[in-house]
């Protein structure tokens, strides 16, 4: 099975990152890291590939930089990577990102596309579904368990109450939730091998896009403004005079938790 995994390089979440003041785009340093939520997609991709003697190819649209994040995913065991890196792509919104990734994945060929539910730096959470639309294949979401065999994809789709079992014919796109498989740690050997693995770098033009199709020019969304998260309000302290539980019940009811 030919498995495509979408993997994003993001600024290290451990160090605060900046938004540029004009467009509110994330300022991307040279050494970005693999988005933690993508480790789950890579892990599931690797498990499926191991079971089917398939391959895992990473697809990433981002300034290549030092490729640190991509190498991290290759070190886990992915076979190769396609990175669409082009100054013209700067400012692309979710719709453009989906279009570009779709073109790259189409070009390479695939049986299954795996993505995270949303990225840790952008949080739009719509790219995978748009991607499926561009590819013209079914989109399955929030998978906490994935099986793929004999041309059929079957997942457990996480719901608030439990899970739905959902099936689709391959090829298809699936998004996987965090925390359901334990992503493997790259091994020392894996890290060394990752240095030798092929990373193909494509420009927008390589995929047939003109300057107006992508980047800020091709995007329908603009970020109007950004405001900091309001500081957390001080909590309410209930002194226990022997009847505090009644007060707590009332608070929980008011909050519609019970």
């Amino acid at each position, binding site marked *: 099975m030919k498995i495509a995994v979408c993997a994003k390089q993001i600024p290290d979440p451990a160090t605060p990152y900046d938004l540029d003041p004009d467009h509110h785009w994330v300022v991307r340093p040279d050494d970005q890291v693999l988005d933690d939520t993508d480790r789950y997609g890579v892990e599931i991709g690797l498990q499926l590939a191991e079971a089917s003697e398939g391959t895992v190819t990473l697809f990433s649209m981002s300034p290549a930089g*030092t490729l640190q994040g991509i190498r991290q995913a290759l070190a886990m065991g992915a076979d190769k990577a396609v990175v669409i890196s082009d100054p013209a792509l700067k400012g692309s919104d979710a719709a453009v990102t989906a279009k570009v990734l779709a073109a790259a994945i189409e070009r390479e060929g695939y049986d299954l596309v795996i993505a995270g539910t949303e990225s840790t730096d952008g949080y739009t959470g719509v790219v995978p579904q748009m991607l499926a639309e561009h590819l013209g294949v079914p989109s399955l979401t929030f998978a906490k368990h994935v099986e793929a065999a004999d041309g059929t994809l079957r997942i457990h789709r996480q719901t608030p109450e439990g899970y739905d079992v959902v099936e689709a014919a391959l090829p298809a796109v699936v998004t996987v939730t965090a925390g359901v498989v334990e992503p493997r740690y790259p091994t020392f050997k894996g890290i060394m091998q990752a240095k030798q693995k092929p990373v193909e770098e494509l420009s927008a033009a390589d995929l047939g896009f003109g300057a107006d199709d992508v980047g800020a020019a091709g995007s329908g969304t603009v970020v109007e403004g950004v405001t900091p998260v309001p500081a957390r309000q001080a909590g309410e302290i209930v002194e226990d005079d022997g009847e505090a539980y009644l007060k707590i019940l009332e608070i929980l009811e008011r909050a519609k938790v019970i």
Partner: protein
Amino acid sequence: MDDYTVPLRDIRFVLDHVCRLEEITTFPGFEHVDVDTVDGLLVEAARFMEEVFAPTNRIGDLVGSRFVDGEVVTPDEFKKAWRAYVEAGWNAVSGPPEYGGGGFPHVVGFAISEMMTASNLAFSLCPMLTGSAITVLDDQPDETLKATYLEKLVTAEWTGTMVLTEPEAGSDVGALRTKAEPSDDGTWAITGTKIFITWGEHDLAENIVHLVLARTPGAPPGTKGISLFVVPKYVVGDDGSFEENGVRCVSIEHKLGIHGSPTCVLEFEEAKGWMVGEEHRGMRYMFKMMNQARVEVGLEGLAVAERAYQKALRYARERLQGRAVGAPPHERSPIIEHPDVRRMLMTMKAYDEAMRGLLYDVAGSVDRSRHHPDDVVREAAAARVALLTPVAKAWCTDVGVEMTSIGLQVHGGMGYVEETGVAQYYRDSRITPIYEGTNGIQAVDLVLRKLPMHGGRVVREYLAEIEGLDAPLAEAGPRFAAMRRELAEALRVLSEATTWLLGRDDPRDVLAGATPYLRMFGTVAGGAYLVRLALAAAKDGEDPWLRAKVATADFYARELLPSAVGLLGAVKAGAAPLYALDPEQLAPAR
């Protein structure tokens, strides 16, 4: 929460500016190494240690390794983490390539070692000793021994120990009595009781490779009559099969700390052993192992102090007590706003970074001593390692214990109760000034053996290097004025103390000054590393992290470095005041 964050940027900065990693990667043998790859490795190793090893620290303390029906049982969490460690191959990074190692510079393995040690000191002793065993076996000439053991030790499927101590032979290794009798097949039969053997028995690995000091028949007394033997827990057949050997664990110790590390009494009864190298030269080989291990123990001082610092800092930002001067009325301030708490945190931060400078200098010098293309540089680097090893071991462990004590103090009463977990750091780190040669013995080594090396040239060159910082400090402007002034004064005093010790004839006077001298040496050297890092930071730019390097060095220069100056009197007082009272007078009177 028992979180630990690897101070990766600090480690990288020291690798760049103290070890000059870039240059090390150009040495013969490191063709496959570049700085980017090292970065990639350190990032992943850090994640692994934080997520897999660090969470096992507490359980190691609470449950510990236990002695059950003659076997040592480690906590289940240890077994799981160990499997992951072996699978990930972290043990192999700096190992010899002929035996499956990655052949990376020693200093890269050292950085990973810092992360692992801070994550779980007790646990880290097992791979640390394994690493030392690898060095000894790789250095000796017998190819069969190498072929039998090295590959499995490099992966850490098997682990190593160092077996010196006996009830009558602690600091005085020469007093050991364990016997080695020749057998017909060319091997040796080892008989005797060894105590305090770290990870001497456990259930993590298939086999344990003991490196044992013993005495052959008719051997001369003292250290000149000691030979070194490889004694495996299971004798390995040509087909790889295992056969029981005559070594067993009789009991393990109940200890103040490092409960995760089994400290074993080992009984050898005609256990089959193979001699390493030549007869009677065991101490020479063992010293290779001990020297490496001593620097690693120094690293333990830093690693636990770093973790204690991180925890103290978190607590100081959360704990509200009192109102800091200048805070709004009625505000309850986080204790980090009080000057005394600030002092404690700054002291911990500054000493941590000073220790890191010293320790990584030694580790980088190990690489230079082995791989630099020029043999003059190689020799100088080896001499530098020899000089600095006792300082790295003793100064960093003494300071390390003090820092864990300060970390506890920051927590107030919560530090003294066990739930908080900071008491563990204090208890754990307390072993580090004792084992691997007590700090008293390190001081003796420094003044009797290391200072006189090459007629005092090695120490003079090291001090001259510190003096060389004066010119760049003068140029660096007013932010560096205090550093320049205090470093010059401290160095003047250290030079005077050095000259005094080198000029003494009565060894009692030299020995009496040994411990304060070592402290002084470490304090001045540590300050010099901070100064170097600060100068490099000022060149690198102006982000807050880089500015902090300058401020930290300035703090150390003003507030900690002057303590070195005050030690001069103690160094030069000679033995007389120490022996002014006879043991009778020391006894209580009624």
